[in-house]
């Protein structure tokens, strides 16, 4: 609890917003003054890291979705080293493991029955893949073009991640028609047959 001796100043804000946040404060057993100060502290911390409070909330949501999608967050360097080792020891098994995970991940969206499921899938996958500076999905009629570029990907990780995307696209009914994969670069083209 903030001391009553703390110097205060008044600001003005939209009444409807203040009233709703005051209700939240009441529900949390604190004062509006304390809650607003906590908010400002968080906003100051995020500003120092060059992020807005909105971005903090968005990132929290990304992590929540990643969690429910069966992803874990780990060190890039460690994951790459493990991917290299596994790829060297069992290339086919490693590719299948990533493909299957892609199918599972894509199916969560494909089977949702939501008309925007592919858009949601794209947006979430791009959000999870913050280690790739370029990640694009372009949908033209029944063909999807995927472009991923990351100078940090190892060769093994590039092939494995590509397999993951192919698996995910497969769950939406897209079959691979062309593929260009080399270290740090993935270019895929996949097509879905249209039922007349």
């Amino acid at each position, binding site marked *: 609890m903030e001391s009553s001796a703390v110097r205060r100043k008044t600001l003005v804000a939209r009444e409807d917003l203040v009233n709703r946040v005051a209700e939240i404060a009441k529900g949390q057993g604190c004062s509006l003054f304390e809650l607003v100060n906590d908010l400002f502290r968080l906003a100051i911390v995020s500003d120092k890291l060059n992020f807005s409070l909105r971005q903090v909330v968005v990132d929290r949501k990304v992590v929540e979705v990643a969690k429910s999608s069966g992803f874990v967050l780990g060190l890039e360097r460690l994951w790459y080293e493990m991917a290299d080792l596994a790829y060297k020891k069992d290339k086919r098994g490693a590719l299948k493991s990533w493909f299957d995970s892609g199918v599972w991940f894509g199916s969560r969206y494909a089977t949702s029955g939501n008309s925007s499921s592919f858009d949601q899938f794209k947006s979430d996958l791009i959000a999870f893949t*913050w280690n790739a500076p370029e990640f694009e999905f372009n949908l033209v009629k029944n063909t999807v073009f995927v472009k991923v570029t990351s100078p940090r990907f190892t060769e093994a990780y590039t092939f494995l991640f590509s397999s993951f995307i192919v698996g995910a696209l497969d769950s939406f009914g897209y079959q691979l028609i062309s593929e260009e994969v080399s270290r740090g670069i993935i270019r895929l083209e996949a097509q879905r047959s249209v039922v007349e």
Partner: protein
Amino acid sequence: MVQRKDKRLVYVNYDLLEEVAKASRNRGETITKFLEESLVQALKVTKAGYDLKQLGDFFEVLYAQRILGGVFVPLEVLNFLTNTALKDDKTSLAKVWFENGTWHGRYLKERFGDPVKSLGTFLEVSRWDLSEVEVKRVGTTIRVRCISAVLSEEATHLLSQFIEGIMQGFDCKLQKCDLLKGMIVMEFTH
């Protein structure tokens, strides 16, 4: 309290205002706009069931992960990679995890005022396969306890190596280590 029909006065801590003004200037917003945006985000945070104070710790750790090159990987893939990479050579993979932990620990030590607390948040944020995480100081001892119903024996061992590496990055020495499949209990001293 109502100043105008649709406005209301809000008290804020005077000592925070200078930094708030700086943050709002950085965003090209007035303090009023900045306050209102903060209130909107507070509503979203509460709706999503997050705790505002924890969100700050969470974000700092997530930011550290971005700096360190954190990557999301499907848990099933991680398990496959672990099992395959471990084949015939358990020692060198354990060494890789330990070294990565040490590197991570050095960064957390420099970045956070209380790196031990940040380790707890880091494990909670990044390792959702852990159902319980406890990192606490008991006198001069730092106790780390992780529980998971889904972690394999190999993955438990690797995670313990990673934690030991992090603690070495904090200049702490391992005093006690109890490992069971899905359970890590470690104690360290400075």
